[in-house]
């Protein structure tokens, strides 16, 4: 590329010199033009000759050579040089732009760790990450990449997760915490016990996805290559007709004048700029998305995403945290702590997730000696004797059964009513928390022309409907088994308009069949879930629903750029062709229609990279 640049600069200097200073003997100028031409155009001429022998007459190199040699022949020296010179400038610019956006994807590959420091026989060894086995301990120093997934056994630090999730804020991590390969250790030295082999670790899953993203072409790309396939031959044939027919038919027509018009046609006939700007835009879009922690498996999915009409969400883990937590503790006559303690003690021997969340909220050691007796009453709750007190913990049914007066609570979730010695002392509410950005995301999606938002859940009707209402979804289907979700999505697919697409968003657990039948399957919280990365078309690395909105917005922006480029490039080319045919435009405009348009289209395409 550097060599090409030097050639262009030398040629440009000669060209400008020869344009500005007019020698008395015009042949000095002409010789300078010729030298300038050969410096910059030799490579094109060489390829052109090679291509004629292979019968490729619609090859760009060949067309440019004919156009410029023709211009020399009819004495248009400056034009001949300018066409070749600017053609090369355009080419250089194009390869620069292609390089740049390829690099933006390659930057993602930067998360690949080169080595791991592993403890073996009491010594620290530097080895290839795929030689490290599960259970071994690795050491990560400040500035190094985390090579394998594991948990910290010693030390604390802050981790830069930007390459993985697009999250700019570093994350604190300390002993006992799980950490993912692909992050960068910022300040402390940590020891990590490896829990996954390199091939199974997060970093190699992501790299695999990026490297093997399908190269399925988009409709726009197929349109433009098809267009180019006919465009060039047609323009060349018209050029030939222009150079022969009018001089023969029109009286007083100047052959040289019509040949000039024909040569200008050849300059405009090159299709490459048009063709490159489309995949370049999509590539930019995919690069831009990956910067935000959104991995798109192919440009066709970006195209589909821009036509999204219905977004279907899974509830648990997608719109809600998927973790049951104590949301409310409402004591009557005793302290909050006392109420929580009673429930935690009563639930101590239960394996139910509810018991876990209560114990977590209580957070203190349970003295099992105090639990004299504890009995589970199926479908109702627990009856226990803790210390000297008889405790009842359970649902409405239990309270009715034991004839305890209580005030009914209408909150959504699981409610545990508590009575001590036959007297109601309050309740605890346990529920799945709605994610912070869920509500806002749904509202914004509607503003961005998404016609319908739907939620599918296996959860109870009351819970599902309450969550849907809280978040503001259009439709909700509850109490669905996994295959019921497939049936619902199939129904929705049938009901949507032909052009509109259906996107399904799930957390990847049990969602694989639905992800596969949707037009665009989006898996959220891709970090850590293998099934999701495989089944989905788009993987969102974090678990924020707002990223879906960002992905849709970006896809729309990319499509807008693509359409702008198609209309602009084809429009300018056809306008210049018409003007040239009727003699209103010169070869200089033709150069603009070729190189100028390609530079502008490429600059426009690069906008997609900036997310």
């Amino acid at each position, binding site marked *: 590329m550097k060599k090409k640049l030097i050639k262009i600069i030398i040629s440009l200097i000669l060209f400008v010199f020869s344009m500005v200073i007019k020698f008395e003997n015009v042949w000095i100028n002409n010789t300078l033009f010729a030298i300038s031409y050969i410096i910059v155009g030799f490579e094109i001429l060489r390829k052109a000759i090679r291509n004629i022998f292979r019968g*490729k007459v619609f090859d760009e190199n060949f067309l440019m050579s004919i156009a410029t040699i023709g211009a020399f022949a009819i004495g248009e020296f400056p034009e001949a040089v300018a066409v070749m010179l600017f053609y090369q400038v355009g080419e250089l610019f194009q390869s620069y732009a*292609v390089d740049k956006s390829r690099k933006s*994807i390659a930057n993602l590959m930067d998360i690949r760790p080169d080595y791991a420091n592993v403890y073996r026989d009491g010594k620290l060894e530097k080895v290839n990450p795929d030689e490290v086995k599960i259970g071994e301990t690795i050491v990560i120093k400040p500035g190094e990449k985390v090579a394998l997934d594991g948990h910290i056994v010693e030390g604390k630090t802050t981790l830069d997760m930007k390459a993985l999730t697009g999250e700019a804020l570093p994350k604190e991590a300390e002993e006992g915490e799980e950490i993912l390969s692909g992050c960068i250790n910022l300040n402390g030295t940590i020891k990590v016990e490896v829990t996954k082999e390199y091939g199974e670790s997060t970093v190699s899953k992501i790299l695999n996805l990026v490297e093997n993203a399908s190269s399925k072409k988009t409709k726009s790309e197929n349109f433009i290559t098809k267009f180019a*396939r006919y465009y060039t031959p047609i323009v060349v044939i018209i050029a030939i007709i222009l150079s022969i027919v009018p001089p023969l038919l029109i009286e007083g027509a100047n052959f040289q004048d019509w040949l000039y018009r024909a040569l200008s046609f050849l300059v405009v006939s090159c299709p*490459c700029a048009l*063709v*490159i700007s*489309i995949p370049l835009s999509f590539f930019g879009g995919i690069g831009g998305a990956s910067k935000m922690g959104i991995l798109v498996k192919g440009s066709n999915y970006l195209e589909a995403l821009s036509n999204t009409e219905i977004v279907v969400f899974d509830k648990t883990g997608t719109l809600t945290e998927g973790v049951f937590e104590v949301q409310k503790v409402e004591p009557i006559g005793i302290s909050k702590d006392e109420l929580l303690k009673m429930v935690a003690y009563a639930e101590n021997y239960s394996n139910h997730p509810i018991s876990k969340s209560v114990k977590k909220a209580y957070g203190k050691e349970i003295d099992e000696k105090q639990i004299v007796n504890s009995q589970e009453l199926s479908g109702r709750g627990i009856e226990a004797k803790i210390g000297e007190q008889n405790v009842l913990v359970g649902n409405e049914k239990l309270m009715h059964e034991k004839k305890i007066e209580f005030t009914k609570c209408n909150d959504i979730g699981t409610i545990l009513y508590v009575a001590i010695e036959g007297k109601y002392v309050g309740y605890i509410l346990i529920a799945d928390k709605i994610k912070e950005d869920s509500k806002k995301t749904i509202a914004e999606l509607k503003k961005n022309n998404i016609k319908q938002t739907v939620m599918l859940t296996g959860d109870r009707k009351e819970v599902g409907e309450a969550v849907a209402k809280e978040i503001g979804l259009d439709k909700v289907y509850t109490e669905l088994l996994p295959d019921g979700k497939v049936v619902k999505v199939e129904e929705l697919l049938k009901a949507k308009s032909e052009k509109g697409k259906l996107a399904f968003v799930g957390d990847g657990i049990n969602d694989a069949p639905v992800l596969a039948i949707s037009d665009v399957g989006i898996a959220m919280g891709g970090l850590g879930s293998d099934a999701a990365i495989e089944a989905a078309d788009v993987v969102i690395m974090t678990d924020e629903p707002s990223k879906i909105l960002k992905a849709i917005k970006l896809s729309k922006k990319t499509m807008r750029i693509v359409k702008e480029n198609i209309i602009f490039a084809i429009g300018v080319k056809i306008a210049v062709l018409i003007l040239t045919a009727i003699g209103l435009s010169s070869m200089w405009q033709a150069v603009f229609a070729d190189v100028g348009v390609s530079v502008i289209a490429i600059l426009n395409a690069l906008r997609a990279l900036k997310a």
Partner: protein
Amino acid sequence: MKCKFKIKGLDCANCAAELERAIQKLDEVENANISFMSERMELELVENDKGEIIKKVKKVIKREEPDVTIEEI
């Protein structure tokens, strides 16, 4: 049978499209897909001697775009 290649030395997106069409014309190739941006080629071949078919593909490449090289991944 599907196989993937790294493809280097393509000049422009249009050349990539033309090469793709030329390879597609081979009887043994059911589907060819060249991505200029990611420098990847995906071929879907009929069940047959893979080595032979790849030789044929390479021959087409040599005729159409002599500067292009491929490497299976």
